[in-house]
């Protein structure tokens, strides 16, 4: 008797397990288990923090816990390749980031993916960039700086967070739009935005473009002077800092972004459910407060708009990588 009960329980369990395992992707009951959100950069970095802020807020709107998984390496390539191998059933998504999703494939033809291989769901936030020089620098305006570069080609140096980072592309975009040669200024790579700021302060470099959040403390303390921002309008906190657009370089509108991205072939129902959940999350006071605290600006883009934005970004940076001769085959 005992035996049969055991057997019956066991067979029921096996049938149930099989049913769960073979259940087709049904958007109706999605999600019925926790969802993994892959962060393709190191734990504790800004993308990771953004993902964790999103994860704890959005689970109320998705209805299942969101587990953040860090897979760093190869400028995001490792984590993204990993997440792209997942079944498009909505249980493994990625925290989208300009570095790993666009810049890395834009300059590495062998990265294993391009934007055509993933499905952008929604942009959640952006971070404007700002061009800074040291407070005691002789360059008071963008024009001063560009004139100096023109007058001494190959002499002035800029610090950035590594070849292929947005800070690196940002300066090259500026040089290009200003009609200067790509080697008019010397590029000095650092490990991360904070160390490249330190390089500027130390005088190893004369100018530096970085995320606004990385520069804000130094701007407030009067250690650096901002020459231009990449936003369309001037920043409320720094009304004296002109935008690139008003200085005559509207093309230098580079900005970083984050969002949610899934693997290619994600069912439309799941994309829509997430897009809606992201919108709801972005209305939450807690989310807004945390995002602002880490220095990002909330900015929503739905699936179509986000996809288009990524395609444009990719095209632009791929062209630049080819121009600069840094495209890795």
């Amino acid at each position, binding site marked *: 008797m005992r035996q049969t009960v055991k057997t019956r329980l066991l067979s029921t369990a096996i049938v149930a397990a099989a049913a769960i395992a073979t259940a087709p992707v049904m958007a109706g009951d999605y999600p019925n288990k926790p969802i993994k959100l892959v962060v393709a950069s*190191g*734990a*504790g*970095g*800004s993308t*990771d*923090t953004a993902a*964790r*802020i999103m*994860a*704890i807020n959005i689970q109320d709107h998705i209805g299942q816990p969101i587990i953040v*998984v*860090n*897979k*760093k*390496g*190869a*400028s995001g*390539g*490792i984590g993204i*390749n*990993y997440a792209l191998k997942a079944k498009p059933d909505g249980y493994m998504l990625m925290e989208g980031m300009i570095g790993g999703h666009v810049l890395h494939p834009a*300059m*590495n033809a*062998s990265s*294993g993916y391009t934007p055509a291989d993933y499905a952008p769901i929604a942009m959640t936030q952006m971070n404007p960039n700002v061009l800074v020089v040291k407070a005691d620098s002789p360059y008071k305006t963008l024009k001063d700086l560009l004139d100096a570069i023109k007058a001494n080609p190959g002499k002035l*140096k800029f610090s950035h967070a*590594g*070849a*292929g980072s947005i800070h690196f592309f940002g300066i090259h975009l500026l040089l290009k739009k200003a009609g200067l040669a790509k080697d008019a200024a*010397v590029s*000095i*790579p*650092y*490990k991360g935005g*904070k*160390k490249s*700021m*330190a*390089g500027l*302060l*130390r*005088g*190893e*470099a004369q100018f530096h473009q970085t995320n606004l*959040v*990385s520069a*804000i*403390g*130094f701007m*407030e*303390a009067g*250690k650096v002077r901002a020459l231009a921002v990449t936003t369309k309008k001037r920043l409320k906190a720094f009304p004296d800092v002109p935008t690139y657009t008003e200085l005559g370089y509207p093309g230098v509108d580079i900005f970083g972004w984050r969002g949610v991205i899934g693997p290619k072939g994600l069912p439309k129902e799941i994309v829509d459910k997430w897009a809606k959940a992201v919108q709801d999350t972005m209305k939450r006071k807690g989310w807004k407060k*945390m995002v602002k*605290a*880490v*220095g990002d600006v909330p900015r929503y883009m739905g699936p179509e708009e986000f996809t288009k934005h990524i395609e444009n970004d990719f095209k632009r940076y791929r062209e630049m990588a080819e121009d600069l001769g*840094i495209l*890795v085959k």
Partner: protein
Amino acid sequence: MVDLDILFQSLELILQWKVVAACLAGVIWGMFVGVTPGLTGIMAVVIALPLTFFMDPQSAIALLLGIYVTAIYGGSVTAIMIATPGTPNAAATVLDGYPLARQGKARQALEMALYASFTAGILSTVVALVIFPIVANFALEFGAAEVFAVIVFSITIIAGVSGESLLKGLIAASFGFLIAMIGQDPIHGSSRFTFGVHDFQAGMHILTLLVGLFTIPEIIVRGVEAYKSRDAVSVGDMGPRMTFRQFISYWPTYLRSSAGGSLLGALPGLGGSPAAFLGYFLAQRFSKKPEEFGEGSLEGVAGAEAGNNAVCGPALVPMMSLGIPGDTTTAVLMGALVIHGLNPGPMLFESAPEFIYSVFLLLFVALIFLFFVGTGVIRMAKWVVRMPTQILFPVVLILATYGTYAVRGTMVDVISMYAVGFLGFLLRIQKIPAAPFAIAFILGPLFENALRKALIISGGSLDIFFSSKISITFLTLAALSAGASAYLHWRLKGTKAAKIITD
């Protein structure tokens, strides 16, 4: 100097039960993670990070500091007991801690590690607290050229841990430098030596290398030994406690190794592992019994643990004063501060000085908790020594495999770990030491990065390395240290040869 008024204000901030409780919770969690191979301090901090979003800033930072401090120590427990560094910081602790455990002196080794960690933690935090306002800009003095000079000096440590043959030490170091080159070019970002394997683009993880290098050869050698002798007994004994007199007798080591660790801690980007090796090296260089190092020297354990724990306090200085974190874990701490609207950087000291002091005071609280929780863990360690070899080794093997996998979740790491393990075994047969291998692997990328960056800055001129007092000082120290090592090796050879002749 310390502003006492602000210091008392900050004392009020932290003397609340919830802050102290958060700190204790952090210490316990950090200890659990520290003694579990594969769970690194950084993971422990990150897992706890979302919790802190909902806490007040003091409790949040108390929790994270508790984890931070404890995880650095916790790695030493497995390093001593099973030759597996629980965290990368504990690599240097294996060198003498594990031989001590094999000799039935596990208890003394564990106590030494705990007391040295505690002492160095307190000393370095005092240093950080007192000199914070003065050296807030210290890290800025160290450009690429200066960092290069410090690393050149650190590389001379290789000679100290080479054992009997300097040549064999250099062979081991070459392996370390070579393997460290796998991954992305630090300047151009292109892949190199990846052999088409995507996962290699991230380079070899330090824990993969350390576990392969230290744990696997040990299991092979001891396993074969136990199999041959049909003797599956355990070490069985924790050995005697360490006496207070013994502890006190190493005071110069605590001071020297803490000073070395504090210096490296205050420089962004170096982290705990080089500090541990520097601490170990300093202990050996000034020891009265340098020949005991590597065979089971308490002084070696003291040096390594004092070195890595001395990083904690000073690493917070550049993070809070400049917004430049010293290592990955302090970067996460910084993230937590930012979430709470405390933006580390030049403004923090002016806007919230009491908060900065409270962070250092919390470090003291965390260290005191660490002391008591650590004492408890040492008691539990007796289960490991009592375990018979035929059970212990499979368990260690599982921990090593799982731990390697857990760090990044890829099988490539596990395969690499076993490959390194086999290489480590071959080296061991040839009596080529593992420590220079590990040091070269840790310092290699730092060396390359600083050298190439400095040369880009100078436009290819070598003058940059001789243009500041700091870099000249460290390069001179490096030359002296290398010279002294060469001399010592030459003399050691002389005495050995003499011994053979008289025998």
